[in-house]
């Protein structure tokens, strides 16, 4: 089939088509009141299988609800807490192994690696009891924007959110924008750090600001938080002993479940996965991150030269074949562009772009209309 240059179509040549790739970022703040409080947990979905808990941004029975993230607990088989008396231990180990298999992979013997606290995959410290926060694809899109993740937890010893003075600690992807690790089968990841508090009355209560407390897997959209994050130093955790209830090291650390005296190790041993998820979910005060959408575009440079497209086949353009916009042969023809159609060789209209207002075309002007098609 012949292609017409002068006519209604103009051929796009190789130099008229360019492929580009752009990363789009959206800032996503998730306030803690949505995660716990506002909807009286009607937006929290627990399943009969009990393997994880889903958090929505609205009561999940509503069609308006959007999935935000899933929360679950994993315990490695070598953990000192993996005693037979532990509630749902099989499921907790199953969750750990599943997540570790996907995110950390296997070693040379085919055994599932444990999560490595420093990401070196050597014999160093392993994260053996941890929470997994699997963010919805709706929010993370293609991946977390590196260096943007931040999560704030309440650190009042008894867990009462409104108590004064406010005590908080922040988990942050501190170095993601500068460096990250690539030795995971699930893509790029980095180490999360417990940083100093943003609360004005809480300064100095952390034992060691900027200590590693978990991992963030960018493409997988998964955050791994060590359970030590919720323990005080005297219990082998990362938080200051100042947070021990009753004062001194003899008392218990952060009370993770309101109305009981469970601290984190008690929660891991004695609570179900959903109960464990409740414990830390209620301490989340804020989550914020930027997502990334990798946008692949093809830009078609529709070059409209001075001699191109100055006439129209619009039925109102003529009356008895005579043009309305010209009365003498010396008048310039004129037409108005509102639409760009992109066609196959078979004359099928494959894509279409609209202008915001009519664009006047005469032999005295020319345009290059850059039409972007995103994939």
């Amino acid at each position, binding site marked *: 089939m012949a292609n017409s240059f002068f006519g209604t179509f103009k051929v796009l040549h190789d130099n008229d088509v360019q492929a580009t790739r752009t990363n789009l970022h959206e800032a996503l703040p998730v306030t803690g009141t949505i995660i716990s409080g506002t909807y009286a947990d009607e937006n929290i979905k627990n399943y009969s299988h009990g393997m994880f808990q889903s958090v929505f941004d609205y009561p999940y029975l509503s069609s308006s609800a959007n999935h935000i993230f899933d929360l679950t607990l994993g315990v490695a088989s070598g953990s000192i807490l993996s005693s037979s008396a532990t509630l749902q231990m099989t499921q907790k180990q199953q969750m750990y192994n599943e997540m570790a298999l996907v995110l950390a992979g296997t070693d040379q013997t085919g055994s599932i690696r444990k999560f490595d606290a420093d990401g070196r995959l050597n014999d160093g410290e392993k994260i053996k009891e941890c929470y997994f926060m699997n963010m919805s694809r709706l929010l993370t899109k293609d991946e977390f924007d590196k260096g943007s993740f931040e999560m704030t937890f309440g650190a009042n010893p008894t867990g009462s959110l409104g108590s004064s003075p406010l005590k908080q600690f922040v988990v942050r992807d501190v170095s993601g924008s500068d460096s990250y690790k690539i030795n995971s089968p699930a893509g790029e990841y980095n180490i999360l750090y417990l940083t100093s508090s943003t609360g004005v009355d809480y300064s100095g209560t952390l034992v060691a600001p900027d200590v590693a407390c978990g991992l963030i897997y960018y493409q997988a959209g998964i955050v791994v938080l060590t359970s030590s994050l919720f323990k005080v130093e005297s219990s082998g955790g990362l938080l200051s002993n100042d947070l021990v209830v009753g004062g001194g090291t003899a008392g218990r650390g952060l009370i993770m479940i309101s109305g009981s005296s469970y601290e984190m190790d008690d929660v891991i041993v004695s609570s179900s996965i959903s109960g464990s998820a409740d414990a830390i979910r209620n301490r989340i005060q804020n989550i914020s991150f930027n997502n990334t959408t990798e946008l692949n575009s093809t830009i078609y440079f529709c070059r409209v030269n001075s001699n191109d497209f100055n006439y129209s086949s619009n039925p109102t353009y003529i009356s008895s074949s005579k043009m309305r916009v010209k009365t003498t042969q010396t008048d310039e023809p004129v037409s108005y562009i509102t639409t760009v159609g992109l066609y196959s060789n*078979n004359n099928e209209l494959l894509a279409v772009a609209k202008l915001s207002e009519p664009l006047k075309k005469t032999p005295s002007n020319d345009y290059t209309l850059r039409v972007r098609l995103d994939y």
Partner: protein
Amino acid sequence: MAFLDNSGDIVLDAVLTDTGRMRMAAGDGSFKIVKFALGDDEIDYTLYNKNHSSGSAYYDLNILQSPVLEAFTNNTSIMKSKLVSYTRKDLLYLPVIKCNDVIFPTIDKNSGVSSTDIPAGGYIITSDQTTSDPSNFTAGTALGSTAAQDGVIKGRMPFANSSSPIAFDQGLDTTELSLQKLQPGDALREDQYLVELDNRLCYLASPDDPNMSTPSSFVDDDNIATYYFSLNSDSSYFAAPDGSTRRVGLYNTNSQGDAGSLTKADSTVIGNSNGGRYGTRLAFSIMATEDLANSTYLFTKLGGTTASNYLGSGAQFYYIDTTIRVTGFRTGHRVDIPLRFIKKV
């Protein structure tokens, strides 16, 4: 010295049409953009006021204020009128395509038909053998006559014949120009056509032999079939060269003859006996599909039933109203012809 205004840089976001998505999903390489066209569907050029009292800056003020619609994703609902490129800037007349209701008159030209419910300029097509057989209807009526009847196309064999091809004339439809032909090579002379129709209802066939179906170029996701005709490669669908006796009549399409050989006797609808520029003439037969012939499903889904004694035939019919669209590939002009498929209840 001030900066130049570069805010005129135009970047447009395109959306895939439904056909584009279908081609992309096919994954067979059929999604390949190779050309573009510009459209002006929203523009009403009658708003162009060359006599505006405030001067030329106001000629197109109303046009430039025309709101532009968002893109339709249905490929047949957008780009209905395209902008056209001609190297000449001195053109005052542009070609049109008109259904030739002289060669084969439309239903409204049938003196025996008082009302058909379809718009003027259309045709009625019988969809099965029973409806095509004149012996099944009141003798002498539009459907009951053995002779060819104006506006009635026998859409099924063996009653379909070459006496009822639909013809389209192209050219400059004006009496302000002398009677001449548009010569081969003239940019105003259309030599390629696109015909779009509903593939569920009908298909095209040779104007000489309705038994010879025409292959379509493609069928889109909405079952709209597109046929492509080129004067060079499909000359049997164009008016015969001088001296031929084809049913669609002379139009000197392929000849280099002078204007003197053309008269109104060539049954043209372009211009009149004193003026006009004749371009090309396209013709084809329309046949009803097997689905229409052997089932009433599409009739009940897309159409309805006529009153009794429709067309004076003494019978009632299922019907479907549709259109067939003929577009000049190079000149862009298009015409929609209403069609009514009928089937005896």
